[in-house]
């Protein structure tokens, strides 16, 4: 009998094995969240490509593809380190990490033992990858707003600033268990309403102010015209792919461990479950579609964008909201996106091609605002600091300038260097001819490009665009002969 007991695994061996099992489970889990999150980028590419005019299709898509090419290395070399080491506002003495995770900072340096093949560390690489996909998403939110007139290279520089510096700094402050906004004010934004969406929207707003509207977007009286995207079906499919990828995004925002109750923690280390947040995201889509439909009176683009806005509006409190509350709040978020989108376009005359500032920016800030009202008192983080309206307001006040100013300043510098916007001749002809010297639907006959006038009439865009082109800086006296010729045609 003694021999039998001697052969049985010891308690320490079992604990070691269970610990390894839990780590491999987490490693596998995050790997597949990354796979699912790729769909967000497939979706962004289809969404923006469909929303662009035919002449700008590939230039638009190439932005989304090359986002991966620039944000990945810059996030690896700098961004992840910012997250690991700047949670107290700046790097602590001796590059010490936050007291909650004292060794985390040094594991995030690109030359550390943890950022490569390591038999003792299953988690650092997959955590990095999940955050990298968040970074792509943040940069891609800005990309849709600026299509059809920004230089590809200018966008790529701005994507690096946003995806590998700005958003990850605010994530370190307010989307980590050791962030100063969390430990001091109980700031609560569990699935990143503000730290991803709101921040990207505010950054995009700063860029749009310098970039200016597309040629012909506004008439002389300042009334908005509407450009027809070349493929609304592609745009809608893109949005549905983004929604699918969001399930991976939501899942990746949680910690998983099979050796401690309840198995799941939110980004702050507070307990939750995967089912709870998946419930909220699903009913959030339902509410958002509903709000978007009614506020836009059935516009297809805004109905689907309303779904996105609805989810963003409830993401901050997704770990604590009841589904019915999420449904109601998401409906209001879908409506808010439509109304604020119209206000930005028609009143402020900001040409946001896909409504990114309204959907992501406005609803991102709205999401954390709602937590202050509907989830006040909920303990946040491993120090159990109560969330509050004041704490949420503190986060909003910190992140608005942190996001807006870098976007405005970086795009202002590019503008001064004449590197922000394509030449007007190229914009009018279409970016694809300049960037790629080809049309990307060679087998299809070109139909006249149309534009919807402020009174709702849809007309051939050529005369409108040429007239707007002629009015740029009084070029050719504002009414070139070619315009007159086209009007006569």
């Amino acid at each position, binding site marked *: 009998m003694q021999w039998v007991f001697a052969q049985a695994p010891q308690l320490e061996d079992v604990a070691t094995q269970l610990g390894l099992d839990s780590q491999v489970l987490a490693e596998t889990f995050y790997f597949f969240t990354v796979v699912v999150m790729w769909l967000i980028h497939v979706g962004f590419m289809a969404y923006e490509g469909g929303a662009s*005019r*035919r*002449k*700008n299709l590939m230039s638009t898509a190439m932005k989304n593809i*090359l986002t991966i*090419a*620039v944000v990945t*290395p*810059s996030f*690896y*070399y700098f961004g992840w380190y910012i997250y690991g080491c700047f949670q107290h506002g700046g790097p602590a003495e001796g590059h010490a990490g936050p007291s909650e995770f004292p060794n985390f900072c040094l594991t995030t340096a*690109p*030359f*550390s*033992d*943890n*950022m*490569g*093949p*390591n*038999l*003792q*560390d299953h988690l650092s690489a997959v955590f990095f990858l999940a955050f990298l996909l968040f970074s792509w998403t943040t940069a891609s939110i800005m990309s849709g707003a600026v299509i059809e007139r920004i*230089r*590809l*290279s*200018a966008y*790529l*520089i701005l994507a*690096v600033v946003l995806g590998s510096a700005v958003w990850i700094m605010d994530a370190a402050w307010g989307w980590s268990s050791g962030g100063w906004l969390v430990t001091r004010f109980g700031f609560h934004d569990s699935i990143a309403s503000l730290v991803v969406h709101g921040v990207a929207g505010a950054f995009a707003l700063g860029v749009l102010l310098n970039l200016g509207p597309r040629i012909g977007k506004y008439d002389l009286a300042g009334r908005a015209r509407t450009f027809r995207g070349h493929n609304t079906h592609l745009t809608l499919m893109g949005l549905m792919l983004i929604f699918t990828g969001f399930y991976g995004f939501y899942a990746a925002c949680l910690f998983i461990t099979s050796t401690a109750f309840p198995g799941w923690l939110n980004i702050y280390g507070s307990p939750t479950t995967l089912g709870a947040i998946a419930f909220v995201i699903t009913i959030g889509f339902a509410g958002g579609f509903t709000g978007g439909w009614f506020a836009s009176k059935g516009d297809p683009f805004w109905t689907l964008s309303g779904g996105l806005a609805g989810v963003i509006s409830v993401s901050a409190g997704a770990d604590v909201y009841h589904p019915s509350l999420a449904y109601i709040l998401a409906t209001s978020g879908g409506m808010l996106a439509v109304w604020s989108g119209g206000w930005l376009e028609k009143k402020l005359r900001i040409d946001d091609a896909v409504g990114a500032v309204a959907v992501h920016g406005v609803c991102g800030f709205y999401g954390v605002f709602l937590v202050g009202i509907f989830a006040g008192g909920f303990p946040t983080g491993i120090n159990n600091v109560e969330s509050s309206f004041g704490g949420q307001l503190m986060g909003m006040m910190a992140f608005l300038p942190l996001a807006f100013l870098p976007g405005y300043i970086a795009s202002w510098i590019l503008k001064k260097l004449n*590197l922000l916007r*394509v*030449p007007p*001749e*190229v914009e*009018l*002809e*279409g970016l694809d*001819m*300049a*960037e*790629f*010297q*080809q*049309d990307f639907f060679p087998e299809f006959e*070109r*139909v*006249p*490009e*149309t534009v919807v006038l402020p009174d709702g009439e849809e007309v*051939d*865009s*050529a005369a409108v*665009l*040429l007239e707007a*082109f002629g009015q740029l800086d009084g070029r*050719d006296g504002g009414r*070139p002969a*070619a*315009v007159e010729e086209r009007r006569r045609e």
Partner: protein
Amino acid sequence: MIDSFPFDEFSEELDAFWTFGPGSSTGTYILTVLGIILMVASLVGWVWLENRKLRAQAELLRAAGGMPAPGGVPPGPGPSQEPLAGPSTDPGD
């Protein structure tokens, strides 16, 4: 042949391992710096190449009469400027 793998054998005691590694070694520092140089050079290259393309196309459009053809008009029989990059589309090449 360069023997860049500085480890004798695998075991459960081994943690970080890679060619020119492990972490915080001269080899890894050099790789990191080279990667950063490549990243910065790529960004500069994107700006330079695109600027060249856009200026060439804008000059070509201005030379053609000052007013470009908006997107609704057929672009013509072929590329409006010599391709500056990418594979050749000429079957004779």
